[in-house]
């Protein structure tokens, strides 16, 4: 079908989401993309995006003006691939009668405090939590605790705090008007697992309120304080744990009021059982590539098809005997700039032996580094690959650590 005759899908795009090429590949033969830009300050230039579809620049528009403008594009669906546009997309979808999260669900997905409350009200076990801000830092939450923005993403302004004094100090370093959530820190359970920090994510497909779980991804231990350092598929959970986390994700998704879309739920295995860390109303970062590497479909494409109301049929199958992974090298907490990296040639020479497909260096010598942004945009090196077992993956990670040496400038 000529591209002009394909259904039009609006995608809220900025510079910290899935790459343009990946989205264009997923949309090929499926839909014509209408790139919605200007809703965030970090939009790619319209000139660039216009080579890959239509562009709707909504800079300076109110939500109702955005909906009115987008109505002229004859959209058949809306999709997001990161959290910031959830609210505006939900408002547009409601105005244009498109399939998406309702505004009230988008609010729950965008606000960690409201999300915790929705889960607790639905009897989903959650850690103790409270809303705090600089002007009212006191809360009845046991320490240690995690302080993070109610509407944050990645590791921005996220702190492990051990006392009320720590809370005050941390809030004094942040935007004085920003609202935070203080949440009881969840300990790791004792485990024999070697790869995971007991955090997993469940990718679920929700269709008209029916939830199916596609896969459980293991997450590598966080870089301090809580930065992503990558993940692997499938996770190394035992089958009974697998069943438990999927059941918990399903209850959490329904508690949040989600009816449609691909949902990413992060769960921590604690001594008291699995606990929801967060529900995200979109596909998890890096997950589409993980499943594609072991023979699964493009989940970016599935997001698009679900948004368009397509019948995606039964859940896809993929090779469970392989383990795909992505691994981030991120800056230490007190680093201010990247200076140099050595060992890249040696690691490249070992690619086939270690199951590495891609190595991507994301910085240049002298470039400043941020430990406040999500690892998906602020990583220094990203390594992707496929191995034949979790034991082999542990060996590959060890070899990467032994081979690469990064030097930093410190404050």
């Amino acid at each position, binding site marked *: 079908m000529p591209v002009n005759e394909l259904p039009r899908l609006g995608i809220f795009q900025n510079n910290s989401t899935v*790459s343009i*090429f990946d989205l264009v590949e997923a949309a090929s033969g499926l839909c014509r993309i209408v790139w919605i830009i200007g809703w965030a300050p970090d939009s790619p230039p319209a000139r660039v995006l216009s080579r*890959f579809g239509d562009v709707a620049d909504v800079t300076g528009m109110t939500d109702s003006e955005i909906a009115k403008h987008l109505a002229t594009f004859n959209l058949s669906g809306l999709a997001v691939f990161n959290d910031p546009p959830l609210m505006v997309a939900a408002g547009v979808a409601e105005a244009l009668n498109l399939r998406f999260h309702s505004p009230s669900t988008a609010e729950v997905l965008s606000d960690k405090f409201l999300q915790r409350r929705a889960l607790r009200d639905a009897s989903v076990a959650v850690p103790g939590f409270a809303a705090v801000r600089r002007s009212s830092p006191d809360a009845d939450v046991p320490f240690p605790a995690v302080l993070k923005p109610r509407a944050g993403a990645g590791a921005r302004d996220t702190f492990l705090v051990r006392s009320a004094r720590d809370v005050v100090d941390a809030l004094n370093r942040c935007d004085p008007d920003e609202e935070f959530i203080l949440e009881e820190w969840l300990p790791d359970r004792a485990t024999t697992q070697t790869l995971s920090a007991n955090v997993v994510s469940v990718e679920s497909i929700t269709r008209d309120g029916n939830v199916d779980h596609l896969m459980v991804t293991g997450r590598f231990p966080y870089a301090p304080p809580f930065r992503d350092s990558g993940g692997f598929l499938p996770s190394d959970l035992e089958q009974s744990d697998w069943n438990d986390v999927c059941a918990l994700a399903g209850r959490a998704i329904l508690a949040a009021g989600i009816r449609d879309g691909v949902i990413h739920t992060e769960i921590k295995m604690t001594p008291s059982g699995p606990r929801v860390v967060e529900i995200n109303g979109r596909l998890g970062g890096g997950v589409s590539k993980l499943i594609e590497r072991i023979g699964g479909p493009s989940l970016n494409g599935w997001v698009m098809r679900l948004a368009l109301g397509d019948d995606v049929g039964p859940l896809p199958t993929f090779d469970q005997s392989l383990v795909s992974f992505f691994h981030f090298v991120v800056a230490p907490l007190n680093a201010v700039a990247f200076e140099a990296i050595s060992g890249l040639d040696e690691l490249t020479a070992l690619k086939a032996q270690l199951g590495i497909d891609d190595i991507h*260096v994301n910085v240049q010598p002298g470039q400043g580094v941020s430990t406040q942004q999500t690892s998906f945009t602020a990583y220094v090196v990203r390594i992707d690959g496929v191995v034949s077992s979790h034991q082999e993956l542990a060996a590959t990670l060890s070899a990467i650590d032994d081979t690469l040496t990064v030097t930093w400038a410190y404050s």
Partner: protein
Amino acid sequence: MSQIDLRIRNVLEGNARLLVAANALNDDSDLYEVGLSSHASVNVMLACEDEFGVEFPESLLRKSTFQSIGSIRRALESLGIADGAE
């Protein structure tokens, strides 16, 4: 080295923000391994279109097209760009 290769290296030098000089790369060096970001790869695509006066068709709008100097040259050659070795 062909004129096409030289022009591709010039495009990379101006748009790719690589860790190494474009002239130090081999034909099959993986540009993503030496620092080509997703965003920069799109800029490289546009700069190639401007430099060679072509428009990449949808079938070539993929990350792999811009993976190496060789893959970029092959894509351009498939669009009719050709010249002799220097």
